[in-house]
């Protein structure tokens, strides 16, 4: 019996649109994962602290407000500070193609945009965690 994949889903900053992230949370729960949801209007510091305490396999940050290029560098810096540079980070929401490229260079494992089908989200997380191996 292997343990469920642990995921933390977060909304960062002044972005009140959480219907998408809630649908994702439910999708992942129904796929047998443990999903920690932190609610709206969190700061990167709060999100990373929570992710470290919860020791999640995957940190998913949903953004619909266009601030991805300022939020993700902060998140990676904070993860390093907390000695968990190996956490899998995923971005979700609406963002331009050129940002997607930059985010991946930065270390975001995958960017799941608004039209991603639920099954693809599940598959992406599952294979990323498998590829990482035991921890």
């Amino acid at each position, binding site marked *: *019996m*292997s*343990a*469920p994949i*642990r995921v933390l889903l977060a909304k960062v900053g002044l972005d009140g649109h959480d219907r998408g992230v809630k649908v994702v*949370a*439910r999708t*992942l*729960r*129904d*796929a*047998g*994962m*443990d*999903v*920690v*949801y*932190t*609610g709206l209007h*969190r700061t990167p*510091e*709060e999100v990373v*602290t*929570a992710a*470290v*305490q*919860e*020791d999640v396999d995957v940190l998913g940050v949903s953004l619909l407000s266009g601030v991805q290029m300022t939020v993700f560098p902060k998140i990676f810096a904070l993860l390093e500070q*907390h*000695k*968990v*540079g*190996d956490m899998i980070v995923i971005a979700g929401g609406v963002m331009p193609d050129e940002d997607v490229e930059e985010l991946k260079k930065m*270390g975001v494992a995958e960017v799941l945009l608004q039209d991603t089908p639920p099954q693809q989200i599940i598959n992406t997380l599952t294979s990323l965690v498998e590829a*990482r*191996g*035991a*921890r």
Partner: protein
Amino acid sequence: MARPYIPSLDLIEPAARGEIWAVARLISRAEAGQPEVREAIGEIYKRAGAAHVIGITGVPGSGKSTLVSKLVRKLLDAGERVAVVAIDPSSPYSGGSILGDRIRMSDLVLDPNVFIRSMATRGAVGGMAHAALDVVDILDLAGFDKIIIETVGVGQDEVEIAKSSHTTVVVSAPGLGDEIQAIKAGILEIADLHVVSKCDRSDANRTLTDLKMMLKDGLGGALTRGWVPPVIGTSSYDDEGFDELVDGFARHLAHLEGPAGQARREQISVFRLKKAAEALMLEMLRSDPSFEPEGKRVAARQTDPYTAASGIVKHFSTEKTHV
């Protein structure tokens, strides 16, 4: 990016220094029930035992999470380091869960003296998660003074929390109708402290009175000899009643200095021992190779389920004594 697997024994020292990543990783491994972590848990157990473990339970919607967040703030102000283990239910269908207790504790997250961990029940009954007590030891090792276990919303007979904590708080809320009548033979018996939450509501006095009457009639407290459980009204909205609650913890802790405390600690240890034995037996049972052949014999009615089962149990209790 990836880093090598760190053996659990090597995580003990960083965890004991309070390094959060190590504490959190040990918890994950304990929660997953990995055999590799058991030796480390054993070491940790020997070094733990200093923390005051507080269980908080009550029906769903009674305000447990909100109360915990207010309570933690009070304890922090008193200079304590506080860890919270917040348990939410796993889906009985998918085995997954949505753990949302943190939402109501978000203003505590950045305090360096707070650690919050969400756990799913993963099929455990009793409002607890299987590994909750291992998690308590790990947090104890990490130097937290108070460890609060918040159970899932429970109903009548989920009393495991009382066998796991030094001080058990049962939260009741006003406006839930005849709830007290309904559960008077259930979780109300396990309370060391009663809290009536949401006392900003006009019908709270009724609930307070009901509870006090019930206790007067001698219906509470099978586990609490020599201790009269106080009934404390709180309002998370008006921030009232929490000093009284914190004071109640101190008084109960003082009560546990006496013989009652020794009895309680032994009771907790026996419960843990049973839990550990149960886990090992289940694991051995699941992996026992004699199930298939014995099952075939049972199917062919050459033997009966009880005889075959007692044969298997005897066989592994004599031969497989390893951890």
